[in-house]
Every structure is written in C-alpha cells, then in structure tokens.
C-alpha cells in the first residue's frame, strides 16, 4: 500500500501481511502537513493489526513542533496498540529535540483523568457549610462596623469627611437622573394599570390614594435602595475589591490604618445619609407620575391633592424614611463586605460585584418583609 499526501510532504505507508508496517516521510512536516499525515496514518494503521512499525524520517527536510509531536505519538504506540515502534533516520538536531520529550515525560506531565463528580449529599453539605460560614462572616462584619462606627465618626481627623462627600456626590447626586426616570415611569405605569379595573366600579379617583400609599410606604424606599444597590453597592465592591487585588488593603494595614475605619465607615455613613433623601425623591417622582395619570383622567389637581393628603399620615412618611435608612445601611455595608472578601484572580472583582448586588437585593426584600410585619403590629 502506498499513498502520498500533498502539501510538500510525501508519506509512504506499507503494511505487510505478517503485521510489519513501514512509514517513510519525505519533505516538510509542518503543522499543515501533520494534519493531513495524521489522517492518512489513522486510516491505514489504526485498523490494521500491526506488530512492528518502523518510521523512516531520513527524508525529512523540515520538521516543526507539531511534526515532532506526531512522531512522538507514533513512537508511544498510541496509533498501533501493542506494536513495537521505532523512529529512524532523524537528522541530528531533530533527533536531539525528539529525545527532549519522551514517553516518560508525557506520562508525568499529562493531565490527570477527570475525577468523578461529587455525590449529592457531599455537594449539599458543602453548600450548607459555605452558607453558614458566609452568614457567620456577615454577622461578624456587622459587629465590627457597629463597634467602629461611633468612635470613627466622633474622631474628626479619622473620619475623612471629604471622602464621605465624594461618595455622596457619586452615589447620590449623580443618581438623580436615573432615579427620576425610573420612579416617574413606575408611578405612571401603576396608576395607569390600576385605573382600568377601578373604572369598572367608578372609583378611578382612588388611584390617587393608592399611588400615594404604595409609593410612600413601599415602592419609594424599594426603588431607591435597588437603584443604589445596582449603581453604588456594586461600585463599592469593585472599588474595594480592586484595592484588595492590588494589595492596597495590605498597604493600609501595614501603615496602621484599619480598612474598616478608613474605607467602610465613610461609605456606610454616606449610604445612611443618602438613602432617605433618595427615598423621598423617588417617592415624590413616583407620586408625580401617578398624579399625571389622574390629571389625564380628567380630575382637577385640587381634588387629587385632597385625596392624597387624606390617605397619608405622618407615620407613613416616617416609616418610609426609616426603611430608607436601613436599606442604605444594608446596601453600603454589603457592598463593602463583598469588596473586602474579594479573592485573587482575574474574575474575582467581577464575582464580588455580582455577589454585592445579589445579596443587597435579597437582604432589602427580607428587611422589607420584616418592616411590613412590624408596621402591622405597631398599628394594632
């Protein structure tokens, strides 16, 4: 059997009936030729029962890394199970390179076979232990913050108020446009959707009452907090996470500066100061959206205003603001915690920001539920 592969490489394959085979290579064995040569040899050698294979490489004018790898693969007997294989006639330089990587090297360096996947109970156990460890860390972090907050705030030199002002501007003032847009649209949508079923009972004017209550007590604080989590909680995590990856946190510690006092307290203070304001603003814009719809339905402004003021009490507003304070603390604390927990590696900061946003929103919703129950109990 004789065959020729194009691409400036000639490959002669002879398989005799007694199980002896001979492959002669002539020309350039580069990475292109290797591909074609491999296919040909797979076709001819793999199905045949071969006891001894002789590869004659004396005709090779050029051989690159891929070609040498092919020769080594043949030499390791991978294409001809159980056969003795010899590679002969390599030029001196190539022979040296060929001997530079042997079967023993391959056995030692090759990837280990994939280990079996873990069993279900093991997987569950691992997750639960990770979850509890994370929870413990969160509680510990809360304790550290509570312990550090008052002394740092009272110490004017340590507090770094300019940093607080910078965060207030970045996370607060710069968030106004997006908060405006989202809140006004949410107000519009809710008012518009509820106006249709209420019309069946001739009760469209109560859209104003509803939008007032919903916005002040629920959606205002929630919208502000969720936008804060997406815009600023993630930014805190990324900022502190990058500092950790760049060893800036280590530098702070060795300078005798506690990262909690130097970075975290300022952000939490800013978050707590900022969120009630953002909450009021989001509430106002949401109500404005609802009012626009009721005006569009043909009710006069004075009537709408009367409905709004009769449905709302001061306690509702205080309640909304309290939520804002708590949500602000949650978002900024979680953002900072996730930043401090950042591991090494290129994807670490990305993971931290994702975890910051997910945990923030989760905790906000849980806190919101707790608040609802509290409010119900207090009203009784």
């Amino acid at each position, binding site marked *: 059997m004789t065959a020729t592969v194009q691409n400036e490489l000639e490959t002669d394959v002879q398989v005799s009936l007694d199980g002896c085979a001979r492959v002669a290579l002539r020309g350039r064995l580069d990475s292109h030729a*290797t591909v074609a040569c491999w296919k040909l040899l797979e076709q001819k050698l793999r199905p045949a029962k071969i006891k001894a294979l002789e590869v004659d490489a004396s005709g090779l004018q050029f051989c690159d890394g891929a070609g040498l790898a092919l020769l080594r693969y043949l030499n390791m007997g991978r294409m001809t199970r159980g056969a003795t294989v010899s590679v002969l006639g390599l030029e001196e330089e190539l022979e040296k390179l060929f001997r530079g990587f042997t079967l023993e090297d391959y056995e030692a360096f090759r990837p280990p076979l994939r280990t079996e996947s873990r069993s279900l109970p093991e997987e569950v156990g691992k997750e639960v232990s990770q979850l509890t460890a994370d929870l413990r860390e969160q509680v510990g972090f809360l304790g550290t913050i509570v312990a550090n907050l008052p002394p740092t705030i009272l110490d004017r030199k340590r507090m770094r108020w300019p940093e607080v002002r910078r965060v207030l501007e970045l996370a607060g003032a710069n968030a106004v446009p997006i908060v405006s847009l989202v809140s006004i649209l949410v107000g519009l949508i809710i008012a518009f959707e509820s106006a249709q079923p209420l019309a069946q009972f001739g009760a469209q004017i109560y859209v104003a009452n509803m939008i007032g209550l919903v916005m002040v007590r629920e959606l205002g604080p929630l919208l502000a907090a969720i936008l804060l989590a997406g815009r600023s909680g993630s930014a805190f995590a990324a900022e502190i996470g990058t500092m950790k990856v760049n060893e800036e946190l280590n530098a702070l510690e060795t300078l005798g500066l506690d990262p909690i006092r130097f970075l975290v307290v300022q952000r939490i203070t800013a978050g707590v100061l900022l969120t009630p304001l953002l909450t009021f603003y989001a509430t106002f814009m949401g109500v404005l959206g609802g009012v626009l719809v009721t005006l569009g339905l043909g009710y006069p402004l004075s009537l709408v205003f009367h409905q709004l003021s009769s449905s709302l009490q001061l306690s509702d507003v205080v309640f909304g603001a309290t939520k804002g304070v708590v949500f602000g603390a949650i978002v900024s604390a979680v953002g900072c915690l996730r930043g401090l927990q950042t591991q090494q590696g290129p*994807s670490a900061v990305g993971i931290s920001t994702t975890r910051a946003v997910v945990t923030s929103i989760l905790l906000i919703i849980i806190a919101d539920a707790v608040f609802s129950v509290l409010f119900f109990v207090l009203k009784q």
Partner: protein
Amino acid sequence: MNDSSEIIISVRDLKTGYGEKVILQNVSFQVRRGEVFVILGGSGCGKSTLLKNLIGLYTPMEGQVWIDGGNLVAAGEVERLVLLRKFGVMYQSGALFGSMTLLENVRLPLDEFTALPDPVKELVALAKLKLVGLGAAAQKMPSELSGGMQKRAAIARAMALDPQILFLDEPSAGLDPVTSAGLDLLIKELAHHFGITFVVVSHELASIYTIADRVIMLDSRTRTVIAEGRPAELRESATDPWVRRFFNREAESVQSDHPNQNL
C-alpha cells in the same frame, strides 16, 4: 544553520507617539535572522512603545515595519494575520490567561490556528512547557506560579506555533538575579537550537551582556536611536557620554537635570 546576514525585521523611518505627542522619530534599524537583538534605553524613552509598533498593536504615525518580507503597517487583514503568525510575544507581566491551566494556555493558539488532532496538540504543548522547564507544572494555574515561572510559561505560549521571531518585553524585570540569569540562558538556548530571532526590550545590563548579539539604544531627548552595535563595543568606544555611562553603569543623581530624563 541560518544565513546570518539575512534581514528578518526592517524598520524604516518610524515615527510614533500618543495623540499629538511624538515619542520616537527617525527610527531605522534592521534585525538579522537568528540573532538576539536588544532594544534598550532609560526609563520612559519609548522602548515599550517601539515594541508595540513592531508587533502591530500601535500604528506608527509615519514609517514602515517589515517583517520577513511583509509590511506590517500597510498589510490588509489577511496578510496581517499571516505576518502575526510569524512571531510570538511575551508581555512584561506574562499575560497568561488566569482562568486556564498552563497547558491550556499553551494549547490555546494551537486550538485556534491549527487543525491538529487533540493528542498532537497536547504533545506539542507539553513539549513546549518542558522546553522552558515547566513540564511538571502543566496542570497548575498561573496564579500558583512565581513571577519567573510565569514568564517562562509565557515564552512557551509564544512559541506554541513555532514562530520565527519572539518579542520579549522586559524579561528580567522583577526577577531575582538567579532566575533572571536562568531566563537569559533559556533565551540563548532557544536562539541557538531553534534559530529563533529574539527582539528583547530590556534595561538590565547584566542580561544584555549575556544575551545580546546587537543592541540599539533609544534616547528620550533626541527621541531616536543614539547607538547601535555590539554591547562590548559600545561600552569601550561609544562617543555619546550617556551611552558610555549606561554601559559602565555609572550612577547619577535622580534629581539631576539630565537630558535623558523625560519628565
């Protein structure tokens, strides 16, 4: 093995910079096949900028970069890909992909640019890693390695497709003298055994004397090449005092208003 007089890289009247600011101009030099060519100069003189022009990351303002008979600056998309395949680059930090093992890092160019069967690709990648002395670390992640090992792994990846030219950006930066000397030895071996042409950006005198066949020296004041030749010759007979000082490692005060400081 190779014809030593054959020119493989030719830079003609290169002018480059950022925006309006010119960093280098009138830069012309030639690199011969199989030699170790070192680009050196003080901090901030444009060594790395020149390298980025040579490997096609930046387009020069003026001038040409010829690599093995093709003009990298004027090449169309297809021709450019062909030219890019002729060289490998080791970046200063190694630039290994952090989410892959060393083996996967070295295999990546083979996976992307060749149709080789998997076992062959694996063998090629392992052989390259062994060549740089990292066979046993094939399954490790880059973050588990020391700086010197990362650089060697980066050389293995740059060599995956058997390029004719290797560009190395500051191979000895941040390494201890022993590791650095080991890397120099590796460069010498690769140049000798494989006939690979090396273009190395460096300012480590010790390594320059060991590896360099020829050097060019850049200067931030004149923004061009101020010296070219063999390092030992330049040490003895350079006319420019700054060049002689550099090669004899004479100290100068950081505060002194030396023309070579580009602040």
